[in-house]
């Protein structure tokens, strides 16, 4: 019992600590990436390559005066940032970072909450993502916040549908809800060089999911919730210092969690990167380390993709956004689902 508790504690610290610890780095990459794409320097003054700039920002967030406007609804106003961050962290609990391995005389599953319906839990947790934003908008009692929150909520609910259709298609393809089984099914190669990734089995579902995660995490080109040129700053307009930082962190962690789910279903999860297994055989280190490294590299590439898209595409107009969600992506998603189900049915 005591050992179990220690194990869960260590897993929690590692799996939840890693993304939180990587946040400053990601924010730095985002800023420097933006600067790189816009032909300017970006933050490069604090420390080597400006790497300590995020730390300086954290210090600023902590010591800044916290403005608590008089017109807000206090309970919802205070609860919203906490809910946003907690809900963003929750899906990470079901995500494994390596295959189950033997250590200390038993099998250790490298995820906090082991279940054979892991993928379901991850999506159930991320479905709650809009509450933080919605309550922030309501609690702020401000027109612009409210508009931002309503936009964010409508957008997230709409895109969740097409996202779910692609997830269901993948569940049919792998015929399982267990993340470990899903990842194991993506091992190996076709013709010795194309990895058996979900992306090559279901390219349509992969594209739907990719668009879905941009919309779910409120990133450009879907950042209607913030829309600086239209509604000032959207749902976090009334928030300052650490409360704002919580929203900021929630956005990035939501992004990481959704990218990890994307990688698990479409890019082989923690399976070794193509070519790495040749090296891994020769080095006497546990295979789990290579798996964690592969997953981290894949997530880093996804994060870079997010940054790349953010500074390349302009924001959607609101009605076009809704058209895309309901009239294009959803029918494509349903058609893809039907074809997949028929294919899986006749294959068996």
């Amino acid at each position, binding site marked *: 019992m005591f050992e179990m508790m220690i194990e869960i504690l260590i897993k929690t610290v590692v799996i939840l600590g890693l993304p939180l610890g990587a946040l400053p780095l990601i924010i730095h990459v985002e800023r420097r990436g933006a600067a790189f794409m816009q032909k300017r320097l970006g933050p490069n003054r604090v420390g080597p390559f400006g790497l300590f700039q995020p730390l300086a920002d954290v210090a600023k967030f902590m010591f800044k005066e916290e403005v608590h406007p008089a017109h807000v609804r206090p309970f919802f106003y205070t609860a919203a940032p906490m809910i946003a961050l907690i809900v963003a962290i929750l899906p990470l609990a079901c995500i494994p970072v390596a295959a189950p391995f033997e250590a200390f005389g038993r099998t250790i599953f490298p995820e906090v909450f082991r279940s054979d*319906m892991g993928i379901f839990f991850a999506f159930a947790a991320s479905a709650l993502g809009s*509450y933080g934003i919605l*309550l922030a908008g*309501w609690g702020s009692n401000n027109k612009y916040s409210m508009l931002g*929150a309503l936009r964010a909520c*409508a957008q997230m609910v709409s895109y969740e549908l097409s996202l779910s259709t692609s997830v269901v298609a993948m569940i049919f393809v792998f015929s399982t809800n267990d993340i470990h089984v899903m990842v194991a099914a993506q091992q190996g190669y076709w013709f010795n060089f194309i990895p058996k990734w979900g992306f090559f089995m279901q390219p349509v579902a992969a594209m739907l999911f990719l668009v879905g995660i941009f919309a779910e995490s409120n990133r450009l080109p879907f950042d209607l919730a913030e829309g600086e040129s239209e509604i000032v700053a959207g749902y976090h307009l009334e928030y300052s210092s650490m409360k704002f930082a919580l929203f900021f962190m929630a956005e990035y962690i939501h992004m990481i969690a959704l990218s990890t789910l994307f990688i698990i279903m479409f890019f082989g999860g923690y399976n070794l990167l193509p070519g790495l297994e040749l090296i891994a055989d020769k080095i006497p280190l546990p295979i789990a380390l290579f798996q964690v490294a592969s997953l981290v590299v894949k997530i880093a590439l996804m994060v870079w993709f997010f940054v790349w898209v953010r500074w390349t595409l302009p924001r959607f107009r609101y009605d076009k956004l809704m058209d895309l969600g309901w009239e294009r992506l959803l029918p494509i998603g349903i058609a893809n689902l039907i074809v997949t189900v028929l294919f899986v049915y006749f294959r068996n």
Partner: protein
Amino acid sequence: MAIDIFLTIITVIFALMLVFSKRTVVSAFALLMTLLTLALIYFQLGSIFLSAVQVLINAGAIAILFVFVMMLINLEQFQNNREKSKIKLVISTFTMLVVLGVLALVINNNIETLSVNNLTDNSMNALFSKLFSTYFLPFEMATVLLLAAIVACIVITTHEKQLVEEETELHKMEPKL
């Protein structure tokens, strides 16, 4: 055991808040918390799939739509003039009696229900093979009932004349877009 009682008490408190709160958004929030604590109770009872679905569908989609609509049309302005009609009282009492009666029937006659305990292994496969074989009729009846409720909602809330007017208005607007 203690955690069961604790969860039940919290669920009941939130459910009471849902009914008796004067502010609609607080009610909606209480609804959300009731759904989430119910999911925790399912989880505690060992039905992992049901709790995940409860969070995914009820808390993640349906409650969000409630909160969304309440905020969109700002129901707070109607909060003080809650009408107290006799019809409402009669209907709600009747519904409560029916629900209590069905519950009493199930408990008294030991009717076999689909619970986690009489599944051999707690996986989705076991659950759905039961649901689509032994319990197919009740399952389909529930879906038909839900469909009927949806149709009834549309019929009650829209009047025919209004619908026609809206359509013509939309028709006029189209060239502008």
